[in-house]
């Protein structure tokens, strides 16, 4: 369609519907093989977790002093990934950002499944998972309630609130779209979409209340997204461990979360755009803007690394300085430099407008960012624990097969759920694309002019 866009009336509302609904037609064998592959890995990871529950945490590589390692790294990584969805769907909605309309549904879906993945890790990390309910405000047998001064309890509240609000936000946005899908489908799909659409007919009365509820949800989700990763960062910053105890952590973690999350949106959208043939909805204009967000947050993250280093030097605290010396030049120093390369250096390529719209280059850069941000969390969490106050305790951690399998399974779980959503529910919002149809037409005309 992009090449045919020469006038100001295409694509029409109907063209948008056709492009999105075509994606929701019955997928082929390769798709089902991919989903089966993902869930086979999940089953393997589940079996490894079952073994861990049966045999205890001894099957992991967790040993004193590194008792938080890959599982908690994965938790922070996935919570971070989740952040871009709310940024794109709520914060950019409040700012009426034009390019968000085509990408926000995929980002929001990614958010929901990323939080659902992150939420598994505190459970997986527990030696006695059957006591997980102790985090809830529920008194134990001695009527002792959870300690609300503990950041771990804040985290339980923050992550469960985030999961609930993300799910509600996604569901609210889906209602007009599934009502549209209901009108254009048959068989079990019609029943499925009718149930989800709740009898939506788009009356002025429905839109009046819907628009207000959506606006207020966006307004509530905006400070929530900033609070959640701040609370996650306080899991570390509230402790007195060198490398963790820092006032910079909240803004530093939030910027890092948006950085990694937007990179993950790019990682998912570029292949999805090609495989689902939605080049006419996701244009280089959208990717150009996503890349600018990655570049901006990369600069903030780089600045945070520099500030953290400066603070360590300026504080004159010998123990803190030793921790950071080991972080840069110790046995795990290579991880720090991988993180600097991936998070600070490679994203600088995005200053080039040509690279920002070169989707292959952008996709490769986004993968580097994902790798770099995973290492960042690992370096902070396990790296600081390995080199604590007392050198006689220093010990370096090696992940076990159980931990690696569960990590791979969590990626498979996330990709499997996302793949299922992408083919059975509208992965691009038809309603919002139509609302901003003028901007989409303009973006496609620009592509056409370039191609011509």
């Amino acid at each position, binding site marked *: 369609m992009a090449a045919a866009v020469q006038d100001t009336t295409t694509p*029409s*509302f*109907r063209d948008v*519907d056709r492009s999105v609904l075509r994606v929701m037609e019955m997928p082929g064998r390769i798709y089902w093989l991919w989903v089966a592959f993902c869930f086979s890995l999940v089953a393997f990871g589940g079996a490894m977790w079952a073994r861990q529950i049966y045999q205890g945490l001894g099957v992991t590589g967790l040993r004193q002093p590194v008792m938080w390692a890959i599982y908690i790294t994965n938790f922070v990584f996935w919570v971070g990934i989740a952040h871009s969805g709310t940024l794109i769907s709520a914060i950019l909605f409040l700012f009426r950002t034009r390019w968000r309309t085509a990408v926000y549904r995929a980002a929001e879906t990614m958010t929901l499944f990323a939080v659902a993945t992150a939420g598994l890790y505190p459970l997986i990390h527990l030696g006695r998972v059957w006591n997980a309910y102790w985090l809830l*405000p529920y*008194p134990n047998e001695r*009527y*002792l*309630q*959870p*300690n*609300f*001064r*503990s950041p771990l*309890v*804040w985290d339980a*509240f*923050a992550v469960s*609130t985030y999961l*609930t*609000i993300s799910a*509600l*936000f996604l*569901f*609210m946005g889906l*209602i*007009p779209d599934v*009502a*549209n899908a*209901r*009108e*254009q489908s048959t068989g079990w799909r019609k029943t499925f979409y009718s149930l989800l659409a*709740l*009898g*939506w*007919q*788009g*009356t*002025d*009365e*429905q*839109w*009046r*209340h*819907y*628009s*207000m*509820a959506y606006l*207020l*949800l966006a307004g*509530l*989700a905006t*400070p*929530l997204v900033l*609070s959640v990763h701040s*609370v996650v960062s306080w899991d570390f910053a509230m402790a007195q461990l060198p490398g963790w105890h820092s006032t910079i952590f909240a803004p530093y973690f939030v910027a890092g979360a948006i950085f990694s999350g937007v990179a993950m949106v790019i990682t998912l959208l570029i292949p999805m755009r090609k495989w689902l043939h939605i080049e006419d909805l996701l244009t280089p204009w959208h990717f150009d803007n996503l890349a600018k967000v990655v570049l901006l947050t990369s600069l903030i993250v780089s600045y945070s690394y520099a500030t953290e280093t400066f603070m360590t030097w300026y504080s004159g605290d010998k123990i803190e300085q030793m921790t950071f010396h080991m972080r840069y030049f110790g046995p795990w120093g290579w991880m720090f430099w991988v993180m600097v390369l991936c998070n600070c250096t490679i994203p600088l390529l995005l200053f080039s407008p040509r690279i920002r719209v070169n989707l292959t280059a952008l996709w490769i850069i986004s993968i580097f960012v994902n790798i770099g941000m995973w290492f960042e969390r690992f370096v902070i969490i396990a790296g600081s624990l390995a080199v604590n106050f007392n050198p006689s305790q220093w010990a370096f951690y090696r992940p076990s097969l159980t931990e690696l399998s569960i990590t791979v399974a969590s990626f498979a779980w996330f990709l499997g759920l996302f793949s299922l959503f992408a083919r059975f529910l509208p992965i691009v919002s038809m*309603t919002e694309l*139509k*609302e901003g149809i003028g901007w989409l037409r303009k973006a496609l005309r620009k592509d056409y002019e370039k191609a011509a």
Partner: protein
Amino acid sequence: MSPSIEIVGSFADEMACTHCIEKLRAVRPAALRVFSPIPSHHIEHAIGKPKSRVRAFVLTGGALGIVSAIALTVGTSWEWNLVVGGKPIVSWPPFIIIMFELMVLFGGISAVLSFLFNARVPAFEIERGYSSRFSEDRFGIVVRCDEGQGAQVESILKESGAEEVVREAA
């Protein structure tokens, strides 16, 4: 008084639909209902209904969240006065975090529930005049009026650019 009728006009263009609503309101029909595939501020302003009551529900929900968090944190701390880390039994700074999270949680749930309640969804009946195209690419205006006003309403709809005008018995 002549019997009531309903006239349905279908538009391809949002602004034509908006102008038509403004003209129709001047005629003061018995009822006016608009179907739209997208949320439209133009249409919302033209119809001139007051702001949604969802705001009040969300405010109440958010306030309830804060009060619940105070009750939870302060109440459970008082229940067993255990000093942890030398901090006061009622430590407001950490409790504010729980208050904030529950404010957002209760406010968000209130937003969705009040939308469902005020917009009357789930809706089990199809509104009169609804067509599947109003969920796809057309804007619809359903005017309920006396039969005597019918011709005038139809002419406004047609002059405003309605692609199709259908008269139904109310």
